[in-house]
């Protein structure tokens, strides 16, 4: 599966911006609405990144258009709190980004070890 995932969207895919990466990561385990997303992104980034409402919804707009996230209807919340969840395409894109970051981390570690040796 991992093999398929990492090759499906193509190696030409651009690296994700940090806010987009964090939003996709936040939605990886469960659907979330705007405020919950902002708080989770803040926690995920160790309180380093605080997205504004405008930045968040700009990113959500692009992710919806790309088909990486979709609206998710929750019965227990008010209709003004629209939740979003990751689509299969979004999950694949996140996996591809994780693989890319792992490769970079591996290369960086190897070079550090080589320079220390």
């Amino acid at each position, binding site marked *: 599966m991992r093999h*398929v995932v990492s*090759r499906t969207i*193509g190696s030409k895919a651009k690296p994700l911006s940090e806010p987009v990466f964090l939003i996709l990561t936040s939605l990886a385990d469960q659907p979330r609405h705007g405020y919950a997303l902002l708080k989770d992104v803040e926690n995920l980034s160790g309180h380093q990144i605080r997205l504004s409402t405008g930045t*968040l*919804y700009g990113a959500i707009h692009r992710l919806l258009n790309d088909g990486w996230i979709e609206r998710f209807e929750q019965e227990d919340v008010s209709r003004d709190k629209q939740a979003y969840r990751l689509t299969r395409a979004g999950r*694949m894109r996140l996996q591809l980004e994780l693989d890319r970051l792992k490769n970079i981390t591996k290369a960086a570690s190897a070079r550090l070890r080589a320079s220390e040796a």
Partner: protein
Amino acid sequence: MKRLFQVMLRLYPKSFRSRFSREMLTTFEDLRREKANCRSIWQIVFLLREIGGLLRGVCAEQFRFAVGSRQNLPAAVGAESGVNDGSNRSEIAELEERVRFHLSQTVDCIANHRFEGARIHAAEEDRARARLLVLQASIHRQANEG
């Protein structure tokens, strides 16, 4: 604060506003409530960050809307229908972009024998095409009624 936020939301393109303005306002209100007990300096920092984010968002969305409308709207649809609805034009442009993206990915996957990926992209392309057809039919219907 809420009033200022509402006024600034009006600067977004209509299509964006109709999809997100209520959610954005709710999210902003949640954040504002959270900051209500903070010192006033932090409330000012919060407000400035929100205004800055909105201004950047407005510029980005207006740019996307202008470029999308100019490049992607099929001339025939607008001309035949006489409909100049910003919301539909923007969504049509976005859907066409999605169709092109998923189509190219499907072809790429098939060429490289990645059939699982091809299936997923083909399904996404179908969804975008279905929505596109509904929108275009709606525009033509409006034109005929008019």
